[in-house]
C-alpha cells in the first residue's frame, strides 16, 4: 500500500449536516464492435503489443479515418435506451493535445455537436427504508476513439521520472462512448450511493443492449466522478474531477472521500481548488492530478477528414422499436411475477443474479428455489473462488433437472448440494454425478421398513413416548433411520412410514 499524506477529513455526518453535495459522472464505455472506430483493425483484448494496428490507427502521415457504422448504431441505441434525443445531424471534432499515447496528437471526438442529447436514467437506490428512485439527467452521449496504452518503466509507474516508457497502440482507435450526466442535486447523503447505482444501471443497460461487455477490470467501462459542495440555498461550490474510478465500489468510495475532504477544507475556512484528482483503489483516497489553471486549450474544431453524421430518422425509429426491455422495467416486472418483497428483490439484484434467476424460472424451477440456489449455494461458491455468478459452470437447465428430482423424492436438499458440487467441479451432468457418487435417495419402501423396524427395536423408550402422544419424539427414530441409510432416505417418507407403523397420525 502506498503511504500518502492524509489531508484532514470531516466526519461524513458532519459534512452532510452542513453541505449539499452535487455530483456529476462521466462514464466512458468501450464498444464491443469487432473493428476499431476508424479502421478495420480488430478490437480483441490482450493481443501482443502493437499487433492490432494499421496506418490509420497509428496515425501515419497520409492516412485517413472512416467511421465504423456499427459504432454509430451502438451509440444511437445507447442514446435511445437513455431516453435521449438523437440529433438529425452532428459532426466529429478534433481535440488537440500532445501525448505519446495519441498517434495523431489529436483525438477524434465530438465537441459541441454530440450525437445524443438531453436524456435521463431512473436509478433505484437502496436505502435503510427500502428502495428510492432517483432520476439522473443525461446531458450528452458522444463518440470518440480510445488512446494507446503507456507502460512506464521505473519512476513509480508514472511518466515523470520513468527510465523509459513503452506504448501499445492496440487500444488506439477502439470506439469509446462517453456519457455525461447533468449535475445531480438534492440527493444529500445518498449522493455516493446514487453515483454507484447510476453506474451499475448503466452497466446493466450496456449489457442488455449487447453494445459492450462492460468489464470494468479490463477498462471497458471507466468513470470520472465530479463533486462539489455548497451550503443549501447558495450557489454550487468549486468542483473536483476524480479520475481512475474503476469499480462500482470505487464510485461510492471516491465520492464519499471527496465529500469528507472538501467539507474539512471548507469547514476550516479554506477554498476548493478546481482540479483533476486521481482515485487510489488501495486506500480509497484521492490525490491531485493536473490542475485546471494550467490545463490545456484543446483547440477543438470540426474534423475535416470526416463527413457529418446524419442518421436517417427511419433507421433511428427502427432501432428504437427493436430496443430490448430496459433492465429497470424488467426488474419490476420480475419482482411482480415472482411476488417477492423489495428487500428480497434487492438481494437478487445485489447478487447480480436477476437474469440467472429469471432464466432458471423459465427453465421450470419455482422462483423461491431458483433464488435459494443462486443466492445461497452458488453465490458462496462464486465468492470462494473469486468468480462471477455468470461464469459458474452450472446452467438453469441443470438446476431444473435437480429440482425435479427433489420434487420426485429422488434427492433431498443435502444430496442436491452434493450433486451441484460435482457439477461445478466439472464431473458432468447432474445424472452423471448422481451415478458416479451414488447419491440417489432410497425410495424403496421395503428397504426403509427394514431400517425402521431395526430403529424401533433399538429405541423402545422413544416408541413409548410417541405412542403416549409425543409425536415430536419421532425425530430420534427418523435420525437413526437416516443414519442407517447414509442420508439417502427421504426423511418425510420415513416419518410417514414410522407413524403408520406405530398407528399414530
Amino acid at each position, binding site marked *: 500500500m502506498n503511504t500518502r499524506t492524509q489531508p484532514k477529513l470531516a466526519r461524513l455526518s458532519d459534512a452532510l449536516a452542513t453541505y449539499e453535495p452535487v455530483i456529476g459522472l462521466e462514464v466512458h464505455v468501450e464498444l464491443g464492435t469487432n473493428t476499431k472506430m476508424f479502421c478495420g483493425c480488430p478490437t480483441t483484448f490482450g493481443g501482443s503489443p502493437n499487433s492490432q494496428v494499421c*496506418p490509420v490507427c497509428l496515425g*501515419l502521415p*497520409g492516412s485517413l479515418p472512416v*467511421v465504423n457504422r456499427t459504432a454509430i448504431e451502438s451509440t444511437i441505441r445507447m442514446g435511445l435506451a437513455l431516453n435521449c434525443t438523437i440529433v438529425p445531424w452532428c459532426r466529429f471534432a*478534433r481535440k488537440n493535445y*500532445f501525448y505519446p499515447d495519441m498517434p495523431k*496528437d489529436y483525438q477524434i471526438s465530438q465537441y459541441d455537436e454530440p450525437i445524443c442529447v438531453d436524456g435521463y436514467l431512473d436509478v433505484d437506490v437502496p436505502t435503510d427504508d427500502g428502495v428510492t428512485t432517483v432520476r439522473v439527467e443525461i446531458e450528452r452521449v458522444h463518440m470518440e476513439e480510445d488512446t494507446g496504452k503507456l507502460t512506464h518503466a521505473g519512476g513509480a509507474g508514472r511518466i515523470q521520472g520513468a527510465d523509459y516508457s513503452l506504448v501499445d497502440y492496440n487500444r488506439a482507435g477502439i470506439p469509446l462512448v462517453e456519457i455525461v450526466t447533468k449535475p445531480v442535486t438534492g440527493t444529500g447523503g445518498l449522493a455516493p450511493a446514487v453515483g454507484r447505482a447510476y453506474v451499475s444501471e448503466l452497466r446493466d443497460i450496456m449489457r442488455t443492449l449487447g453494445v459492450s461487455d462492460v468489464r470494468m477490470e479490463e477498462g471497458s467501462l471507466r468513470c470520472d466522478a465530479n463533486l462539489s459542495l455548497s451550503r443549501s440555498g447558495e450557489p454550487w461550490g468549486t468542483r473536483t474531477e476524480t479520475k481512475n474510478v474503476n469499480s462500482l465500489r470505487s464510485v461510492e468510495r471516491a465520492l464519499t472521500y471527496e465529500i469528507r475532504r472538501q467539507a474539512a477544507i471548507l469547514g476550516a475556512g479554506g477554498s476548493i481548488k478546481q482540479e483533476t484528482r486521481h482515485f487510489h483503489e488501495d486506500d480509497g483516497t484521492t490525490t491531485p492530478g493536473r490542475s485546471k489553471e494550467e490545463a490545456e*486549450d484543446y*483547440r477543438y474544431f470540426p474534423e*475535416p477528414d470526416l463527413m457529418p453524421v446524419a442518421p436517417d430518422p427511419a433507421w433511428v425509429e427502427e432501432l428504437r422499436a427493436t430496443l430490448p426491455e430496459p433492465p429497470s422495467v424488467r426488474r419490476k416486472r420480475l419482482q411482480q411475477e415472482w411476488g417477492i418483497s423489495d428487500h428480497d428483490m434487492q438481494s437478487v439484484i445485489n447478487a447480480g443474479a436477476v437474469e440467472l434467476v429469471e432464466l432458471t424460472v423459465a427453465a421450470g424451477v419455482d422462483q423461491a428455489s431458483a433464488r435459494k440456489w443462486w443466492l445461497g449455494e452458488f453465490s458462496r461458491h462464486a465468492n470462494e473462488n473469486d468468480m462471477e455468478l455468470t461464469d459458474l459452470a452450472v446452467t438453469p437447465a441443470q438446476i431444473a433437472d435437480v429440482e425435479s428430482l427433489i420434487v420426485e423424492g429422488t434427492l433431498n436438499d443435502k444430496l442436491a448440494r452434493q450433486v451441484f458440487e460435482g457439477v461445478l467441479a466439472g464431473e458432468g451432468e447432474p445424472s452423471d454425478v448422481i451415478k458416479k457418487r451414488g447419491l440417489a435417495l432410497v425410495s424403496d419402501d421395503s428397504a426403509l421398513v427394514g431400517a425402521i423396524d431395526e430403529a424401533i427395536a433399538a429405541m423402545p423408550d422413544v416408541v413409548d413416548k410417541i405412542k403416549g402422544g409425543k409425536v415430536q419424539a419421532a425425530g430420534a427414530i427418523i435420525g437413526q433411520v437416516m443414519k442407517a441409510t447414509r442420508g439417502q432416505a427421504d426423511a418425510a417418507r420415513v416419518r410417514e412410514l414410522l407413524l403408520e407403523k406405530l398407528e399414530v397420525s
Partner: protein
Amino acid sequence: MSADVLRMSAASLAAALAGKQITAEEVTRVFLERIRDVDPQIHAFLRIDEEGALATAREVDRRRDGGENLPRLAGVPVAVKDVMTTVGMPTTVGSAILDGWEPPYDATIVAKLRDNLMPILGKTNMDEFAMGSSTEHSAYGPTRNPWDTDRIPGGSGGGSAAALAALEVPLALGTDTGGSIRQPAAVTGTVGVKPTYGSVSRYGLVALASSLDQAGPCARTVMDAAMLHEVIAGHDPRDSTSLPDPVPDFVGAARRADVGGVRIGIISELTGDGYQAGVMQRFTEAVETYRGLGADIVEVSCPNFSYALAAYYLILPSEASSNLAKFDAMRYGLRVGDDGIATVEQVMARTRDAGFGAEVKRRIMLGTYALSSGYYDEYYGQAQKVRTLVQQDFDAAFEQCDVLISPTCPTTAFRLGEKLEDPLAMYLNDIATIPVNLAGNAALSLPVGLAPEDGLPVGLQIIAPHRQDQRLYNAGAALEAALEDQWDRPFIEGLQ
C-alpha cells in the same frame, strides 16, 4: 530518336508504345538519362527510382509482347510529388522532420499509377509540407525554373512542374491546396489541374489542410492531363470525403475541344490592378481567341473574393497546425534531444524546433492561435463564413456561364529569394487560385504565351463548377489548339 521521345506528348508516347514502335524500357531510359543530364541544374527530383521504373517498364513490354491488352498509359513514365506515400521510396514532404521515412503503404493514387503500369521515375521536390509558392521552402534546396534558372518554378509543386518543363518526364502528379498545381504550371508553361474536391482520393497524401487539399494531374498538354486524370480519379472507400461519382470522360471532352456557344465568364475581381501588363495582355488575347472560336464572353463579379486570401490564411494554418502535430519524434522521422534526461515534452519540442522550417513554424503558430479558445469564433469561425460567401459567389457566377476564366497568377515567375523575406507578397501570388480551393471547384491552368516584357510563360485559369471537371478539358483543349495554330508550333518548343 531520344530527342523526339522527350518532346512527345504522353498521348503520342502511349500510341507509339501501343503500336510497338518503341518499348517502355527505351522510353523510360530516355527520361532517366534526361534527368541525369539536366536535373543537377533544375533539382526537380528529390529521389529517383531507376530500378523500380525499369522493372515496371519491362513488365509492360513483356505483357504487351504476350498480346495482353494494357491500360492506355501503360509504360508512360510519371513523377510523383513527395507529399504522396510510396512503398519502396522515402516520403519526406520536403521536410527534414520526415527525412528518410519509408511509408509502409502506397497512396491510393500511387497504387493507381502502379495498377496502370506507369513507371514511376521518382519523387519531386516541393515546399516543406506544401507550404509555399516557390519551392524555396524545401528542406532539400530549391527547384529552379527551366525557363530561367534564377527564377522560381512556382510552388508548392515546383518539382513536378519543372520536371515537365525540363522534359524530364511526360506526366506528373501534384497536390493543390491553394494553387500548388496551377501556379507552378502557369510559371513553367505547363498544364495543371485541380480536380473537384473529393473526386480524387486523398488517402496517402500527407495532409496540409484536409478541407482544401486535392491531388491532380500535371502535364504538358491538356489531353495528357485528361488521360492522367482518368487514371487517378474515382471513389475511394478509404477517404470519407471521396465522392461516389463515376469518372467522367475527360479524354472525350479534350477531344471535343469545341467552345461554340459555351458561356465563358471573366471574373472582374481577378484582373486589372496588381496584374503584370504582359500577363494581362496574353490573357486579353486569349479572351479574343475564345470569342473567335464562338464562345459567349460575359463579365461576372465575385465581390467576396476580396476576403478569400484572409480566410484561406486562417483555415489553412488552423487545419495544418493540427495535421502537423503528429510529427512529434515518437513514432517515425527525426528525433532530437533524446539524451535520456529530457522529458517527452522536451524531446517533442526540440524535434519540432529542429525539424520544421520557418514557414511551417509560422503557419503552425498562426493556426494554433486562430483555434485558441476565445479566438475561435473571431478567426476560424469568421473564415468559414467567408468560405460560404465565396461559394455563393461562384454559384451565382455559374448561373450566368459554363466556365470562368482568369489569369492563373498576377505575375510571371519571380526571382529566387525575391519574396522569401516577405510572406505576404508570397501569399498574394495565389490570389486567383485560392478561391477555387475554398469553394471546392475544379480548375485548370494552361499556358497562353510569353509575357513580352520578360519572355516568361503566362498561365490562364479555367474554373468549372463542382463535378463538372470535363468542362475544363473541353475549354482548355479548344484554346490550346487555337494557340498552337496561332504560333504554328508546340508551345513547349520555347524551352532550351
